[in-house]
């Protein structure tokens, strides 16, 4: 699934109380921004794509990989979707240190391939003398992992507790954790909303690096025009659960106050 040309299809109907989501989008772009006021259905859309919320009907597809199809009775569970999700509150596991947070998903993949792999690495990580950021046994097959840590400059944070991190560091750890699963698609919910302006400018380059160097397709939820302009190459404007406009970010943002 690293084809790059793969399109993401989000064609879903979902009702939750008074709110109704009705999207029929086929996205060919690499980085898509979902843009719109709060309550317009941005997070609900991400939850549906991640498999955390089941649409009433429709199809969700990444390239040929069908994640959800109500007619064919397909509903791939979230742990098999290969969709990375960085939620707005980040949801860093409070009972695990940075290393264990970051490796949580990487470990899951390794464990799915061969049971012995991750326990060895975990033991290596436990002895408190990291030779590489991942601890013993991380080199070789996990080249992507090493480059994620390098890209996001996590190396020096690995032994820290999650509580002690600054806002920007938390953001990078959450991003790294999602990328370590080598996702087919990365979902980012207002990744910069909790950061002050100065910090935003320091995190944005990290996002650009992820986009350019790892080439992971992204759906990026935001209501900040600058961010969208810098990160996204396609924008969809949502309102009350419907896509009201979509197109190149510059055009979309001009017509949005």
């Amino acid at each position, binding site marked *: 699934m690293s084809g790059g040309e793969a399109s993401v299809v989000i064609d879903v109907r979902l009702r939750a109380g008074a709110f109704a989501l009705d999207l029929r989008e086929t996205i060919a772009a690499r980085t898509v921004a979902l843009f719109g006021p709060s309550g317009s259905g941005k997070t609900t859309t991400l939850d549906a794509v*991640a*498999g*955390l919320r089941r649409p009433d009907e429709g199809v969700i597809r990444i390239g040929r990989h069908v994640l959800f199809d109500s007619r064919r009775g397909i509903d791939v*569970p*979230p*742990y*098999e*979707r*290969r*969709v*990375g*999700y960085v*939620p707005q*509150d980040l*949801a860093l*596991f*409070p*009972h695990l240190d940075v290393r264990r947070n970051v490796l*949580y*998903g990487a470990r*899951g*993949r390794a*464990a*799915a391939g061969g049971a012995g792999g991750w326990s060895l690495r975990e033991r290596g990580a436990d002895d408190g003398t990291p030779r590489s950021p991942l601890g013993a046994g991380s080199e070789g097959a996990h080249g992507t992992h090493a480059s994620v840590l390098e890209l996001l400059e996590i190396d020096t944070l690995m032994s820290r507790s999650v509580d002690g991190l600054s806002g920007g560091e938390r953001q990078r750890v959450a991003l790294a*954790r*999602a990328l370590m*699963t080598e996702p087919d698609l990365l979902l980012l919910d207002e990744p910069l909303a909790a950061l002050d302006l100065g910090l935003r400018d320091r995190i944005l380059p990290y996002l650009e690096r992820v986009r350019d160097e790892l080439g992971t397709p992204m759906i990026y939820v935001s209501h900040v025009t600058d961010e969208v302009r810098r990160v996204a190459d396609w924008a969809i404007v949502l309102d009350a659960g419907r896509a009201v406009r979509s197109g190149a970010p510059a055009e979309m943002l001009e017509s949005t106050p």
Partner: protein
Amino acid sequence: MPVRCKEPGLRGGRADEFRKEEGAVTAELVEVTGFTVLMAAVATLVMLPPGVAVAWLLARREFPGRAVLETFVSLPLVVPPVATGLILLKLFGRRGPLGALLEPLGIDIVFTWKAVVVAMAVMGLPLLVRATRAGFEQADRRYEAIAATLGARPWRVFWTVSLPLARRGLLAGTVLGFSRAIGEFGATIMLAGALPGARTLSVAIYRNAELGRDAAAMTLIAAAVTIGFAAVYLSNRLGTAS
């Protein structure tokens, strides 16, 4: 599993007579306390798997009969323990549905130490479930959802996220269940009787008081209070520490 204490080698004389009695009291204290703590520990181990499973189900799942299960598990808290004991006796007796199942396997529950464990586990379970369930409910479900997107299957999510986040409730529930097991009387006396060598603190206190052996009863009460104090103190500490 009686804990035997060697009688000190005493010879005749009044002082020796007195010491002999004192020795008997000490022997009973050691035996009964040891037996009670051991049985309560076994009962706690027995109630943990079903207790944690029920707590998790009640905290995390919607299913038909949920309210019935919820009520049923709490029932031993409100039904007189003696009544619970009698129900257990009917279930585990030779002609009871569970007793008949176990008899061909050579497992006899009623009036053995196993009966003590069963009575303690049933009576401790509601407290374990309540505290553990609260622990699960306080843990943000968002963490579990994100763990799933990171590739963790439900079983792994449970062990690596749900259970560690609920650990305070689980610890408090374990201590509470254990303490309840230590103090159990009504169900135990119905199901296990008061056989020598299989007497819990409560049963031994009752027997001694009944026979007018106040000194022996008071010694056992001191032991019961000490264990109870330690357990509640520990549970409160666990509640405040991270």
